[in-house]
């Protein structure tokens, strides 16, 4: 038990005290980015990892929530109204997404979500009276919940951290819940689940909504972080990037998407300051992950760790990993 809770406690403590030791506002901001991208990746992981439904249109959902916040603020509404509206619109869009795309799985699902994402991107690009087209929308202020102004990067970090921890807990509960188990069942054996009396479509639909909620939340954090939203955020590359976070970290695990988000954000923002060909580096890392740990960084590291410890302590050899079918 201690072996499981200690690392978690250390990690949470490290995150809580992060602004004190990381050395500079810039790194606090980078960590904020890792956190909200991790929420985004967790959201996609619900579908891609637990549900086996790979979506290439999540950046559209992410962006639509950002745009709703920007547009509502532009119309003169307060932050609370803007955020609530963004969550509502994000979830309604996800419901529409789900109704259209859940008619198929596999490649079909990928293609339909891809098309829907591109439609939202096109709307953002061409519906100039609402979205400002290529010029995007500026968000002049960040909200100040309980009188704490999030304009300060430290405060924004803590707000993001709170939302992040809540999201992680929510996903952990989801994964252990009957609904989560049923979703994994529909991933592995959809026909058997159907025969057992489970409503496969309904399970997937609810999973979609949960995924959409997390995506909306991260979209709102994103727009308040950058205080700017433009169509590029909705582009296919953004969808692919978050999918890479999930796949590189380890789909179907809780920690995987978080590690993946950290990897991508750090290489993109920090390492790119030292290495001009950072795209190449990121590509090389992905290739290495696929070759060495095809199941993702987190499960792969666990496997290698167990392999190493097994050699030293053969008595524990019978402890086997729960392999994914």
């Amino acid at each position, binding site marked *: 038990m201690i072996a499981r809770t200690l690392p978690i406690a250390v990690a949470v403590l490290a995150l809580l005290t992060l602004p004190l030791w990381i050395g500079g506002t810039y790194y606090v901001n980078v960590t904020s980015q890792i956190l909200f991208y991790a929420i985004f990746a967790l959201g996609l992981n619900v579908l891609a990892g637990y549900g086996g439904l790979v979506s290439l249109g999540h950046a559209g959902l992410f962006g639509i929530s950002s745009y709703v916040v920007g547009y509502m603020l532009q119309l003169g509404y307060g932050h609370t109204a803007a955020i609530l509206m963004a969550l509502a619109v994000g979830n309604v869009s996800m419901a529409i997404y789900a109704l259209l795309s859940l008619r198929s799985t596999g490649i079909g699902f990928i293609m339909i979500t891809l098309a829907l994402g591109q439609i939202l991107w096109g709307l953002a690009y061409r519906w100039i009276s609402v979205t400002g087209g290529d010029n995007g929308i500026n968000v002049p202020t960040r909200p100040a919940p309980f009188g704490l102004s999030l304009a300060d990067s430290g405060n924004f970090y803590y707000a993001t951290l709170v939302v992040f921890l809540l999201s992680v807990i929510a996903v952990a509960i989801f994964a252990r819940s009957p609904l989560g188990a049923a979703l994994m069942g529909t991933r592995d054996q959809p026909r058997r689940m159907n025969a057992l009396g489970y409503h496969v479509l309904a399970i997937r639909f609810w999973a979609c909504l949960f995924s959409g909620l997390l995506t909306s939340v991260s979209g709102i954090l994103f727009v308040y972080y950058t205080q700017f939203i433009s169509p590029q955020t909705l582009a296919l590359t953004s969808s692919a990037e978050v999918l890479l976070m999930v796949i590189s970290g380890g789909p179907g695990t809780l920690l995987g998407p978080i590690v993946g988000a950290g990897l991508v954000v750090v290489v993109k*923002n920090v390492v790119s300051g030292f290495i001009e060909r950072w795209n190449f580096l990121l590509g090389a890392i992905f290739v290495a992950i696929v070759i060495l740990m095809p199941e993702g960084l987190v499960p792969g590291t666990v496997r290698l760790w167990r392999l190493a410890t097994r050699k030293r302590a053969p008595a524990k050899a019978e402890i086997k990993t729960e392999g994914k079918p």
Partner: protein
Amino acid sequence: MSRKLTRRQMMAATAAGAAAATFKFPMPAIAQAAPFKLGLLTVKTGPLAQGGIQMEQGVVTFLKEKNYTFAGRKVDFISADTGGNPAGTKTKAQELIERDKVDAILGPLAAFELLAITDYVRDQKTPMLSLAGAEDMTQRRPNPYFLRPAASSSQAMHPMADFAAKELKLKRVVTISEDFAFGHEQMGGFQQTFEEAGGRIVNKIWPPLVTPDYTPFVAQIADCDGVCQGFAGSNPLRFMKTYAAAGLKYPVVSGETGGDDALLRSFGDEALGLYSCCPYTLDHNTDSNKRFVAAMVKDYGVEPGFYAAGLYVAAAVVAAGLEKSGGKTDDKEAFVKALKAVDLKDTPRGPIKFDHLGNVVGDFYIRHLEKVNGKLVNKTIKTYKNVSQFWTYDEKKFLQQPVYSRNYPPLKT
């Protein structure tokens, strides 16, 4: 023993803390001797990289010429790759301002990048010199810490339209440009001046930024005696090829990106006869320009275009501003004031100064693309002196009309 050590450590820590507290205050006084930190936001990866890399080359050429010293202060140059997207630009701007604590920022390249960081940069009071178009940055939504030493989107198109109407005697023109703000603003400026001079825009065509094949768009060009193209990046190359392949012979006019000197290496005969208006021209016959071109050819083996020259001049403005402020950057308001007061008589693009909104006032060159000794060159045929972003219009009236956009000025039917 261990207690002693702890106490000693504690003493050391206290001393260090006290020292830090004491030294924090007189820091600005010491900062005079500290190096001047110059940040560059550019794009080194993705479709905009070609221009972005030239931007960096332009800055480095100037720094080498000055031996990395402005106004007696050593210059630390920090270059950051935004990846050509707004979120990346924001992060990199934060990196430059919060981590590297730069005194001035050059760049970014694209209008959408600039729009994403303008509020942030204003809050941080960091002077920023960019060549991105985005008209309103120096017009209806000015940022006091922003200077544009290159040209606003429509600044080159006003004289181009004047030339097209008065000297080329064009009457009916079709405009074609990318469907984004820079294209809209360019074509809007062209339309306004051209129609005031008696011409008429018969059709406006807007292909998306990424268009694999221009044939369907070129096919719409008809019922005219001239074409105005406002393409950027490598798109002018592909457009001119398709245009020539379609057998169209109407004269083509364009702005600084459509006929950029850096494109000459890649253009073929299909581009012959292209007219372009640019704030920089490769054949500008002054010593300062010859020195700049020679340095670029020597170091990078390329002749500079608008991007390299724009950033070379931007760096020159920073150097001159620092000279004016006596090498001081602590008072950021005074520093940006000194930057705006810069009045350079001799730069590779000719004399420049700034208006009260921070936009450049300088010479613009009309060039004609010709073949000399088997090599394509942009030959300067006319110079418009001291062109401001408002052209010949009254500033107040100009600012009262909406910003140039896809539908402004409207197409006359």
